[in-house]
């Protein structure tokens, strides 16, 4: 391992908190999804760092599963974005406050 594992984890944590802040602070649906992407990448950093730390390939395998899950999530959520835009004409998250559908 070229750097202490703690530094990798701190880096991943900062990245994760940035994504969380983006999800919580921004009100545009696209920016919320971008925040989710940042959080998933922070998880990938932690997994690859762990893989290098313990010299096991399993962490990298899990990053591949993470990428597949992200692809599925992005496909569904962008389809929802297109649907909501067509139906309501806006992407502001605060506008979607009714449960009637």
């Amino acid at each position, binding site marked *: 391992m070229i750097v202490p594992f703690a530094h990798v984890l701190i880096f991943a944590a900062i990245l994760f908190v940035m994504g969380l*802040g*983006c999800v919580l602070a921004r009100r545009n649906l696209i920016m919320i999804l*971008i925040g989710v992407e940042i959080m998933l990448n922070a998880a990938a950093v932690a997994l690859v760092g762990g893989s290098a730390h313990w010299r096991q*390939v399993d962490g*990298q395998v899990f990053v591949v599963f993470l*990428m597949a899950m992200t692809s599925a999530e*992005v496909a569904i959520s962008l389809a929802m974005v297109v649907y909501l835009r067509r139906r309501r004409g806006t992407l502001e998250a605060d506008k979607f406050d009714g449960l009637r559908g």
Partner: protein
Amino acid sequence: MIASVVFYLLAAATLAATLLCITRTSPVHAVIYLVHAFFDLALIFYLFGAPLVAAWEMIIYAGAIMVLFLFIIMMLELAPGGKPLTVDRRRWIPVLLLSLVTLGCTVLLIVLDPAAAGSGAAFHASPREFGTALFDRYALAVQVVSFQLLFAAVGAYYVGKGEPRARGDNP
């Protein structure tokens, strides 16, 4: 040690690009800065001995997912338009800094070559080792993930198909 310096430089560049990404008002700029952050992350993955994951980070994340975001943004015309295309010199400063750091780290990585210098010194997962673990120990998980991708494709098609019904149409 140069490799650790490269890591800290790349980590700082990733954090800077991500910070620029989450503070942009225009979604297009945010996506482009996030693509830059993913380039830096891919270099970090390569540095950590995960060349295949680094390649997939570029191909899947930066190449496919982020371009899908751009495509949706442009299809829905979410980008604020109408602004004149003036060249603001101050806008070039973060771009130049980030690009120079990424370029310098790429050159350093090529010179250092952690894959060849490994041989016990640093962890390096070859694609063969990686594929054996993926399709031997995690074969069932690969099947489950393929099902998940199929369900996602069906779901995205169902949500995105045709004209939506008018409001109050459903019982």
